[in-house]
């Protein structure tokens, strides 16, 4: 086609849309949009947000609490005995399972499986033991109310250690170095092993393990560094500790994600029980959670008000424990400080990745049992990714001396 003269060509274009301009404007809008989004999501924190951040940093965590029901809770010798017991596979029916089999120190004291495998197959996911001393309840369903009483359960569970207390007490009595360590803490080893004596020694073994577990503490993460920098008004250090993506994710965490409802405090857990509508695992009925768990802890001979407890009068958590329909299908909130180790997630490892977990909370579908407390979040896909990035920034090596992480000599 022959070109017309310049003047005519310009005239003929006046009624038409100028595509280059449209494209330029669209691009400008996009650029402005990205810039604005960045400004908005990286804007300074409000006073309320700063207070919340301050409450979440590791420095706000009080020192590892002593357990009043365990009189050797703070005793280093008890921790050393507990350390040995924790790693000793002789504390099992087949001589091959120790606590460290499912609570592996190099994996954040968990095992990376959806449901643990020891002598048999457990029906629950092994929780991490880091900072476990801060929780008034143990297990996903809170069926134990102290570290020492919890340690006793797996020892006799046919799916876990599959042993019995008589066997363990005999082991302590027969092994000279164990016996010596035991007697230093708990007095003379009983000569006549009747039921009552066996139970007492058994409880004491739990108390030693509890003293060891009390030492398992989380270390500072980049998130903590960020909050410290924020409080010190050190902008450069803030920039170094969290990437913009992670800071945007923190914003979602505090805001639209509604996470701090349950994941609050320096451990990012309130250690309370919540039903968040997790789907049942293949082949099993949905887990009833805290409802049967509460019944079990109340009936437990080794609970806070039982005769093996060293402080039967200080049992407020047990005495005033929440019962009722809210506890059906409710599980204990886990800490978020160890997420790279604790996959897969939820009480039976139903959710494989953090992206799955975030999607689960975003959807907030009806619970199979009881009532889902969570509400749909309506997160944009980029908000989900930002949130996940932030969660990764909570990861840090634990603040535990190497010797406690290794098998004792």
């Amino acid at each position: 086609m022959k070109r017309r003269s310049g003047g005519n060509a310009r005239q003929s274009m006046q009624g038409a849309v100028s595509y280059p301009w449209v494209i330029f404007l669209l691009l400008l809008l996009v650029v402005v949009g990205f810039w604005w989004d960045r400004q908005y999501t990286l804007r300074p924190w409000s006073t309320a947000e700063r207070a919340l951040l301050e409450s979440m940093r590791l420095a706000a965590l009080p020192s590892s609490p002593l357990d009043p029901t365990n009189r050797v809770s703070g005793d280093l010798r008890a921790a050393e005995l507990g350390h040995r017991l924790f790693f000793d596979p002789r504390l099992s029916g087949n001589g091959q399972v120790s606590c460290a089999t499912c609570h592996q120190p190099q994996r954040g004291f968990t095992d990376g499986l959806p449901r643990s495998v020891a002598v048999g197959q457990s029906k629950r996911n092994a929780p991490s033991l880091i900072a476990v001393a801060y929780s008034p309840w143990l297990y996903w369903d809170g069926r134990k109310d102290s570290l020492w009483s919890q340690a006793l359960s797996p020892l006799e569970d046919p799916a876990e250690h599959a042993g019995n207390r008589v066997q363990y007490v005999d082991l302590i009595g027969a092994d000279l170095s164990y016996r010596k360590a035991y007697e230093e803490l708990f007095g003379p080893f009983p000569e006549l092993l009747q039921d009552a004596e066996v139970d007492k020694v058994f409880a004491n073994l739990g108390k030693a393990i509890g003293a060891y577990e009390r030492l398992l503490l989380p270390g500072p993460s980049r998130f903590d560094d960020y909050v410290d920098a924020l409080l010190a008004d050190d902008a450069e250090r803030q920039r170094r500790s969290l990437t913009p993506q992670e800071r945007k994710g923190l914003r979602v965490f505090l805001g639209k994600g509604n996470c701090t409802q349950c994941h609050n405090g320096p451990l990012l857990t309130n250690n309370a029980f919540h039903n968040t509508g997790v789907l049942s695992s293949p082949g099993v009925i949905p887990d009833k959670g805290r409802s049967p768990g509460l019944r079990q802890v109340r009936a437990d001979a080794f609970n806070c008000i039982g005769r093996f407890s060293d402080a039967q009068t200080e049992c407020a958590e047990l005495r005033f424990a929440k019962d009722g329909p809210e506890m059906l299908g409710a599980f204990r909130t886990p800490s978020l400080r160890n997420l790279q180790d604790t996959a897969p997630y939820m009480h039976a490892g139903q959710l494989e990745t953090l992206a799955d977990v975030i999607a689960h909370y975003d959807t907030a579908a009806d619970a199979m049992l009881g009532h889902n407390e969570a509400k749909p979040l309506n997160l944009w896909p980029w908000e989900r990714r930002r949130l996940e990035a932030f969660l990764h920034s909570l990861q840090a090596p634990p603040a535990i001396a190497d010797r406690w992480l290794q098998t004792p000599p």
Partner: protein
Amino acid sequence: MLWAAPSLTWAHGGVSFEDDQCLIQVGFFRGHFTAFQPRSRGHTQFCEDLPEIGETVFVLEYLHDGLADLPLEFRIIRDVTGLGRFVRWDDVLAIEDLDAATVFHQQPLLEPDAYAVIHTFKEAGDYVGIVTTRHPDTGILYTAVFPFAVGEGVPIAWIVGALVLLLLAGLVMTRRLLPARPLVPVQMVLAGLALWILPTGEARGQETFPLVATTDHFELRIAPQLWPLRINQIHAWDVYLLTRDGTPVQGAEISLLGGMPAHDHGLPTSPLSTQRPADGHYLLEGMKFHMNGSWEITITVRVDGVAETVVLALTL
């Protein structure tokens, strides 16, 4: 949609769809009865027919407390009666060989919290669910019979495909893109203005402690032993109960309920008033808050036939 369709109500024990609930009536004991097919349909609840064969979880939650004390027996049979939706307990009794028709049988099981069973359907077809329980004291048998079909639903892929086609058709017809997220949302501008102009209190009615609250007959002086209040720590509250003219009140029952108006849950503990000394001093033990935000605490005082309440608003 299959799971939204209302059905016939059964006078003598069946599953019906009333007010968004899937009700079952075992005798006069009411429960909420739903089925899930978690592997294929996730969290979707079914009250009656199931769209597919495969893993199915049946859940019975108790509306009548009595069910928690009854051993429940649950049986699923192929519908050998041919009566379909009209099958009743008498028809079940008339079946000669119930075991031959049975595909699933849970022996009587006492479940104090909720009743749940799991079964994998291998064949599509008509089935009948039978829930029975015999009262341990009276020996009376209570029954519920409900027919349902399995595997006659529209496969999910078809539903998804149909929806996608509808959506595309809608787009083509209206020739519009979905609205883009506004770059400067009007709501945010308004919110920003509001925050700037309005007082920036975190909640209305924020209480400061110790506080004095009055009702028609009483004056309560309330002081938490944990101050300032923080979350995740169990503690007690001191409550001094006086009459309006200042006389300490003896022997009152003080109870406390708490919750967060923005969320539907209560306190994480069950606080109790545990001390009744002579000077009107009561101790509310077992207080604990597990979330930041706005809490509403209702304290009820009962004495001599009088019951009065005080409602407190707190923000943690």
